[in-house]
């Protein structure tokens, strides 16, 4: 069954190659859509397998773990792969209407598929050095996507994005080197066993902090998030949607993986640091958003703020908190990618994303207004949308361990999120357009309309579904949290039965 574990990685790679060969023809973009659909199918099959059998591992080239390269799919990996494929498919459809032939010729679809492959690989790998390699695959593809088009803002944002991510990469690499020096293994399941035998546990905590900083840069937590609001509003909307949905979440995934599987020995120290980080991230992100007047910049700061909630779930380290964190991850990817896609349609209809220069969408494009309300209210945590359950689980978990202050912070940040969303609502939707333009959806061509709005409607429907029927999702998240807190099934799946 090992092909099932690697299929979600191989499909985007194959798609990338075909899309590159066909980059001069319109067919190339449909290859990208078809490949994304196929990847979703592969991810669904993997998910079904994981639900049926529990954790599955695949050893590349039949080299037994811990000597070979291992790919592992547990609940967390499987759900992240599925949600990556969903976001990938939505953005691939959207991109057929947005990306210009010039950008396609320069390899947009190839880079996009390689990015998806990198993200999926990072979720599935069971080897920490391999995780570094997948991070690099993802990073180099994201560099290309970010500056594709070459407008001055993109180059400017690109410089900040590239430099800060390079630092994080080097730090990650050094941490891997030190960890290897202490334990003699790179296999994550094997690391979970061997870190207990390390004599110098203090040094282990130092390495844990290096990992925290390296992944913290990727996840854009306080005080390492500055690259994100500097760059996410500059590229094409498809690109910023897939970045917003997936890239920071790979950082969060890596934090969750490493700090539940490997570094769970000095919780009093590492997870307390994480708790502070989570609080500051939530607050600075939401305050940064309050000061902005650009659709995408507001959303960018909200990514930072929402990352804080996920890190909070990891920091509290109780079954309920991790359940909340997993639920939050899934909900957030759907909602955030969708909001960026909507920003793209808004820009098309009104000519800008600067909030003071646009308006009139509620009167003239009520369908878009409705589609915006779903993810916006979900982000802020209105019942009965997905964000409400995510926040509910986390705040309940915080109250459960008597973290009154952090629970208060989480609630207050939710309130401030509503402030930003109402600001967008009032400026872009409610007030009339300052130039007297009547932004109607009918302004888009017929085919364009379908390609732009189908992914948005699909993701909004998913948000509503999770919100109205949270029970199976919460149950799944609970099972995931149980797996994370007791890694024995993960370790057994990789290393086999041990005495």
């Amino acid at each position, binding site marked *: 069954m090992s092909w099932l574990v690697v299929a979600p990685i191989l499909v985007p790679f194959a798609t990338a190659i075909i899309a590159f060969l066909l980059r001069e023809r319109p067919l190339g973009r449909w290859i990208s859509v078809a490949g994304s659909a196929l990847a979703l199918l592969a991810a669904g099959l993997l998910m079904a397998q994981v639900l049926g059998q529990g954790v599955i591992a695949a050893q590349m080239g039949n080299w037994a773990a811990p000597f070979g390269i291992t790919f592992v799919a547990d609940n967390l990996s499987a759900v992240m792969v599925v949600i990556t494929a969903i976001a990938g498919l939505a953005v691939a459809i959207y991109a057929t209407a947005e990306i210009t032939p010039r950008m396609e010729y320069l390899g947009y679809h190839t880079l996009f598929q390689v990015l998806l492959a990198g993200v999926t690989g990072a979720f599935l790998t069971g080897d920490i050095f391999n995780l570094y390699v997948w991070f*690099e695959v993802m990073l180099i593809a994201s560099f290309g996507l970010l*500056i594709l088009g070459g407008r001055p803002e993109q180059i400017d944002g690109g410089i900040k994005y590239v*430099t800060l991510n390079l630092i994080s990469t080097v730090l990650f690499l*050094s941490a891997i080197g030190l960890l290897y*020096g*202490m334990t003699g293994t790179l296999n994550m399941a094997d690391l979970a066993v061997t870190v207990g035998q390390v004599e110098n546990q203090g040094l282990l905590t130092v390495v844990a902090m290096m990992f925290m900083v390296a992944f913290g840069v990727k996840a854009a937590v306080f005080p390492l998030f500055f690259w994100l609001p*500097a760059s996410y509003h500059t590229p094409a909307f498809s690109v910023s949607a897939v970045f917003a949905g997936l890239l920071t979440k790979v950082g969060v995934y890596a934090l969750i993986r490493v700090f539940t599987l490997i570094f769970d020995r000095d919780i009093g120290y590492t997870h307390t640091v994480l708790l502070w980080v989570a609080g500051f991230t939530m607050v600075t992100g939401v305050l940064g958003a309050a000061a902005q007047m650009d659709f995408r910049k507001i959303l960018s700061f909200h990514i930072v703020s929402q990352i804080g909630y996920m890190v909070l779930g990891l920091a509290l380290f109780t079954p309920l908190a991790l359940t909340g964190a997993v639920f939050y991850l899934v909900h957030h990817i759907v909602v955030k990618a969708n909001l960026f896609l909507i920003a793209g349609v808004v820009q098309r209809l009104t000519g800008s994303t600067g909030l003071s220069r646009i308006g009139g969408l509620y009167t003239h494009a009520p369908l878009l207004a409705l589609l915006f309300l779903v993810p916006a209210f979900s982000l802020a945590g209105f019942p009965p949308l997905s964000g409400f359950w995510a926040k509910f689980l986390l705040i309940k978990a915080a109250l459960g361990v008597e973290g009154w202050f952090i629970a208060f912070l989480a609630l207050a940040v939710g309130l401030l999120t509503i402030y930003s969303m109402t600001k967008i609502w009032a400026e872009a939707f409610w007030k009339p357009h300052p130039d007297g333009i009547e932004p109607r959806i009918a302004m888009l061509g017929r085919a364009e309309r379908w390609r732009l709005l189908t992914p948005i409607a699909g993701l909004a429907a998913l948000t509503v579904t999770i919100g109205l029927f949270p029970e199976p999702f919460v149950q799944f998240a609970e099972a995931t949290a149980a797996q994370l807190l007791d890694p024995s099934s993960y370790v057994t799946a990789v290393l086999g039965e041990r005495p």
Partner: protein
Amino acid sequence: METLLSLTIGLLVAAAVYLMLARNVLKFLFGMILLSNAANLLIFTAGRLTFGEPPLIAAGEKLPPPGVANALPQALVLTAIVIGFGLFAFALVLVFRAYTTLGTLNTDDMRVAEPQEEADR
């Protein structure tokens, strides 16, 4: 030997941090190159050093003799060097492009994506 390499790594990191604190993006990039080489040496050293014992398996044997050099850190370093080379080639071109488009290498002047007067954009 470990001490010597540790001191070298420390020196490289110190020089790298000094360069990276400069406002000039090109200097920052040179600092990054030093830092990534320091990381490579770190992995190499952390994998334990041995002298003159190549990890070769004699004909007919199944295991190398005990005490040979660990080949894995070298493989890791090799991977990291290749990846690092690609990244720096890209970063260098990006910096050059920034210089031609934005007309500056000073990070303080790079305000196109985040203009200072943007409260009402």
